[in-house]
């Protein structure tokens, strides 16, 4: 039997590329997403290398140099209500703010995706039971739930991470369940079942690769919300405690300065905003890059 070949375009010189390399290619051509990514990387690197790049000590204050304006000699971005250098505090503040913003999303991703994929693949009464429990948490507006949990558990970094994780798990679980249910009924999953593969193998080889992508994109979109909420908790006094440097907490302690040094008082919030919008724009870009139908 001769090979029956259809007329094809001449075989392309480039190697074939899978899904993720296609996504990366499209993403790199999106200017907005790339700028956002650059900003995120800058903030993250600054936070990591804080001790090396910060000009002063984050906890050393000076009573005579309180609330100096931006550009004051020795204090490039001014000083706060206890005389500490703002630039230093902002750089160090990035560490905690990023940490309490990103960690809950990471934890919620792992927990929520597992629950959702499990419920989505198995279906039936397990699915109904799990999703109903998720519904109960959904019945709370996120801010309310976060604050209620934080209020109940008490202030502190660990507690705010725990409460935010609990807030995000149901959201991610729902998305995970929805995507998994769609994929589960695809023909190639049925074909895999027909070849005699067990449930674990099918999930590992066929389901996970197709499901984790959309869930991950959703999770990156949650980071900006998480940062705003986490800093918000500190702003209310429910999160990070003084004298730690954290943007939300700084916003709180500088409130009284809005009449005397408004620009300095507004700086920490500016950082939250910048980080949040960068994550949002990057997440949007990622979603567009992944959505291309082939």
């Amino acid at each position, binding site marked *: 039997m001769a090979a029956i070949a259809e007329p094809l375009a001449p075989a392309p010189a480039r190697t074939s590329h899978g899904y993720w390399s296609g996504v990366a290619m499209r993403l790199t051509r999106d200017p907005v997403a790339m700028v956002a990514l650059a900003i995120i990387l800058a903030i993250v690197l600054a936070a990591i290398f804080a001790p090396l790049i910060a000009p002063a000590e984050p906890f050393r204050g000076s009573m005579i140099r309180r609330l100096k304006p931006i550009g004051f000699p020795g204090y490039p971005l001014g000083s706060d209500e206890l005389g500490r250098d703002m630039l230093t505090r902002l750089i160090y503040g990035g560490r905690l703010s990023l940490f309490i913003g990103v960690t809950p999303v990471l934890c919620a991703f792992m927990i929520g995706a597992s629950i959702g994929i499990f419920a989505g693949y198995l279906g039936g009464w397990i699915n109904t039971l799990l999703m*109903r*429990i998720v*519904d*109960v*948490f959904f*019945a*709370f*507006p*996120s*801010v*309310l739930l976060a*604050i*209620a*949990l934080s*209020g*109940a*558990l*008490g202030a502190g970094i660990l507690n705010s991470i725990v409460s935010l994780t609990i807030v995000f798990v149901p959201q991610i679980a729902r998305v995970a369940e929805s995507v998994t249910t769609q994929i589960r009924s695809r023909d190639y999953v049925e074909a895999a079942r027909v070849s005699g593969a067990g449930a674990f193998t099918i999930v590992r080889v066929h389901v996970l690769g197709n499901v984790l992508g959309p869930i991950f994109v959703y999770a990156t979109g949650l980071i*900006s919300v998480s940062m*705003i909420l986490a*800093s*918000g908790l500190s*702003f*209310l*006094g*429910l999160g990070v405690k003084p004298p730690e440097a954290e943007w939300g907490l700084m*916003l709180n302690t500088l*409130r009284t300065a*809005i*009449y005397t040094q*408004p620009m300095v*008082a*507004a700086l*920490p*919030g*500016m950082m*939250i*905003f910048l980080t*949040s*919008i960068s994550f*949002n*724009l990057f997440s*949007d870009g990622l979603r567009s890059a992944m959505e291309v139908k082939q």
Partner: protein
Amino acid sequence: MLLYILRRILYVTPVALGVSVICFLLVHLAPGDPLTAVMPIDATAQQQAEMRQAYGFDRPLPVQYGIWLWKVLRGDLGHSIATGRPVLSEVSRAVGNSLILASVATLIGFTFGTFFGFVAGYFRDSPLDKAASALSVFGVSVPHYWLGIVMVIIFSAQLGWLPPTGAGPDGSGNWRPDAEHLRYIILPAVTMSVIPMGIIARTVRALVADILGQEFVQALRAKGLGEWGVFKHVVTNAAPTALAVMGLQLGYLLGGSILIETVFAWPGSGFLLNAAIFQRDLPLLQGTILVLAMFFVMLNLIVDVLQTVLDPRIQRA
């Protein structure tokens, strides 16, 4: 139709019960004995035991829940430890203020949001679209409590046009829709409106772009229907979802108002929540969370039913 409503109510009941369980358990999550919050520090062991019995803390948890639930259903949410007043009346008053603020904010957000969303959806990929989209991204990315502070800086501290805090000139606990009180609601409402504006703009843009791209619109145009007619079609098709989103946003604002209310010292449920947390006023905390959560559940139910009524595509046999 009625059957569908009944079914939805039936569906919501276990969720509402679940919510009440969580509200009840929250208080017991707190490290340490709930009793320590209500007791004077120098109470003797005898007094502790008496108080424990009086509050019912010595009974097993499910029994405590049952007693609490029974009281709640009869309208008794306990008494605030700080003020001694019944929780229900405190919360009702506060929720009223928050509702006013949230409603005004939602209205502003919905109006501007739909406007921007329509513009963006109609003139897709044009500079207008980019500008409108940028505004909506801004809306969802900005930390609203920071925005509130910035607004206070600009309009209160620097320009002196509007008051920075409070709901009324005498620090009154209530807001009335009269000329005096109008100035007090502007800043908080505008600040609060930014988030729903962003979300609604995004949603409406997607809806409008989607509807305009559908084949039936092309068919309408081919039949000679003018732009105004097409516009009316778009509105009718987009309305159910847009209204649903608006309803949900109202719920989120009501539940999440604590941050803005803290910035502006607005005497609403969020502000009450803040006070309750820091005074460890457990009955008040529990009561406020319960009322707010139930509000949200009811709102979801109403939005769900309304959406079915308005959108004929959702068929219910």
